[in-house]
């Protein structure tokens, strides 16, 4: 790929990535939203987080390739003590450390 082509590619990627990030926050932050929409939006974070986590933990395969269900793997196993620690302590830093150590140990064991 030539330099101008690459610059064009990156510019295109930048624009199509920026627009979905910019449009809602720019227009929705300037007016008051209806109550039902606020209540619906209130559930979006938990939904997105859970969707990200479940697909991260229980699926094998990449974004581009084909995926398959794999409920038991090192990531999902490490999630059990990590989740328990998070529920108990609510400490973000601690959870990250516990998760990394558990995953590291499991990798050594299996």
């Amino acid at each position, binding site marked *: 790929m030539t330099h101008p082509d690459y610059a064009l590619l*990156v510019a295109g990627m930048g624009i199509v990535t920026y627009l979905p990030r*910019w449009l809602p926050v720019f227009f929705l932050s300037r007016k008051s939203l209806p109550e039902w929409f*606020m209540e619906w939006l209130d*559930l979006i974070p938990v939904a997105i987080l859970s969707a990200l*986590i479940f697909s991260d933990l229980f699926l094998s395969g990449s974004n581009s390739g084909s995926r398959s269900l794999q409920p038991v793997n090192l990531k999902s196993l490490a999630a059990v003590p990590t989740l328990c620690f*998070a529920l108990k302590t609510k400490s973000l830093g601690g959870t*990250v450390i516990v998760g990394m150590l558990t995953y590291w140990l499991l990798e050594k064991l299996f």
Partner: protein
Amino acid sequence: MTPQPDTKLSAGDLAVDSREGRRTIATLRDGVKAAWPICLGYMPIGLALGVLAQKAGISPPEIGFMSLLVFAGSAQFIAVSMISGGSSILPVVVTTFMVNLRHLLMSSSLAVHLRPAAHPLFVSLFAYGITDESFAVNTARFKDGSWDPGRALVVNQVSNGVWVLSTIAGGYGGHFIPEGSLGIDYALSAMFLCLLVYQLRGAIYAVTAVIAGGLSVLWALVLPGNAYLIIASILAATAGYALRQRIFRKAISHDTS
């Protein structure tokens, strides 16, 4: 002599300046503190992307340029693999659009918290740094009331800086760093788990989480790309909303009967 009032004025100015300075430092410090798990997680991913890019014939400054303009991990991985496969420009841009469309929802959700400081320029700069990770961290902080748009912006920009530098560093020498040391590959997964726990503020949130998780896995198996994230999140939030309305209405009718 006239200099007297002048010096007094400047002393007052200095006091204001130092107060503002302290506030700025506090904002920076809190933002960096909140961003560290993201940075820890970004480093190995950024390094890996840099290595892959180098193999695909993209130089370190070039991948840094992409990281700066795009700032979206999974889309950049896909782009690099498509480029090394000889793809032309348009398919890469279209794929990037599809992969990053999920930010629409995150951006909508963050709009609620940004309203007090909705200067168009600030909001536009903030929007640039909305990622899965910064969204999750900032939402958790906004919810517990300890956060403001300034601190949220610091989280976005610090994460962005680490991401750009990691991808460049990966291009220069990422292959010298042993892979997966100390479970660092799990940093972001663990961070998301804890941030999910923060979001479980009642039964309706837990129910929504389970629905979203189940749906995301189901849709991911059927649909290519990551449209499953958007579909699962929208469906789950809608289901949660409907359930809450229903329970709420029932509670009211119980009260009146």
